[in-house]
């Protein structure tokens, strides 16, 4: 009789428990990101940038070099790291407040310059760390700490579709949107990250993977209710799938 562990913690993650709330999507996102880095055999040549937001603690969990960045300036920091170290795998991890609000200028210009790093963008439709305020990605009608009557387009505009928005820029060579709440979707999301890394390693240009995530604690729902809400309300606004792939063709494809 032989025993084989067919699923276990990747060496891309430190053996640490996260401080994230139960059900939080950052956990799965961290894991598939770390698996993708390990599978790219890049643990020793990765430099990641952790955003201000819940995922600032990424550096406690990822088993590779990581720096903090000021809120929203994550792509500026990643830009310089990649310019200095063009042969390293550079990862810019951002939340929706970090990217789509305070850091809109930095992300648009890094993307437009075609900076050769990969952005992992967690869209949980609100600001997690500060207690569930409205983000640019918040849905119309969604109640948050700062839209107690629900977001209205008159007052607060419309949900920003960052992956599609950035995909219009010629410097962007890869854009895809995945989700983190179902096994099949998680597999697909990971395949997006791996492809984004290929684009980066081929020095083709900018790559972004947007990942829809539940935020049960701030949505005021259980994790399972949150999954339902995500499917019901977020998927129609934020359709999943590949948006742009202008990287070099895959072998055999």
């Amino acid at each position, binding site marked *: 009789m032989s025993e084989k*562990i067919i699923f276990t913690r990747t060496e891309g993650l430190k053996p640490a428990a996260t401080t994230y709330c139960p059900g939080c999507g950052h*956990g799965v996102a961290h894991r598939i990101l770390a698996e993708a880095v390990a599978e790219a055999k890049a643990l020793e040549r990765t430099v990641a940038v952790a955003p201000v937001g819940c995922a600032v603690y990424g550096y406690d969990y990822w088993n590779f070099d990581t720096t903090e960045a000021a809120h929203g300036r994550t792509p500026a920091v990643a830009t310089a790291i990649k310019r200095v170290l063009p042969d390293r795998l550079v990862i810019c991890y951002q939340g929706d407040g970090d990217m789509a609000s305070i850091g809109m200028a930095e992300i648009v210009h890094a993307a437009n310059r075609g900076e050769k790093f990969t952005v992992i963008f967690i869209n949980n439709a609100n600001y997690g760390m500060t207690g569930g305020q409205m983000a640019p990605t918040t849905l119309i009608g969604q109640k948050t700490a700062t839209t107690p009557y629900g977001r209205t387009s008159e007052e607060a505009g419309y949900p920003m579709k960052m992956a599609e928005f950035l995909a219009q820029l010629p410097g962007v060579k890869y854009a895809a949107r995945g989700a983190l709440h179902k096994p099949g979707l998680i597999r697909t999301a990971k395949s997006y990250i791996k492809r984004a890394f290929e684009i980066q390693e081929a020095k083709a240009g900018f790559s972004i993977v947007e990942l829809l995530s539940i935020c049960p604690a701030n949505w005021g729902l259980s994790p399972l209710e949150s999954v339902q809400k995500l499917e019901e309300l977020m998927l129609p606004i934020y359709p999943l799938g590949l948006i742009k792939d202008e990287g070099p063709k895959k072998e055999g494809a």
Partner: protein
Amino acid sequence: MPAHFRVKVDPNLCKSCELCIAVCPKKIMVISDQKNDLGFRLALCTDHSACTGCMACALVCPDVAIEIIRTE
């Protein structure tokens, strides 16, 4: 002999989010009465003989608390 699978939940990591329970096609994951140090009741596989090793529970677990072991 057909393969058998074991679902091992790390009591230090599980946060009782129940995502594994919802995705299990065999409906063999439950929340037990056993609590960990953080006060979370632990997820548990009630019937290893029914497990097909699909890994759905492990894939959705945000806390990487689940290991799957295959025995042949």
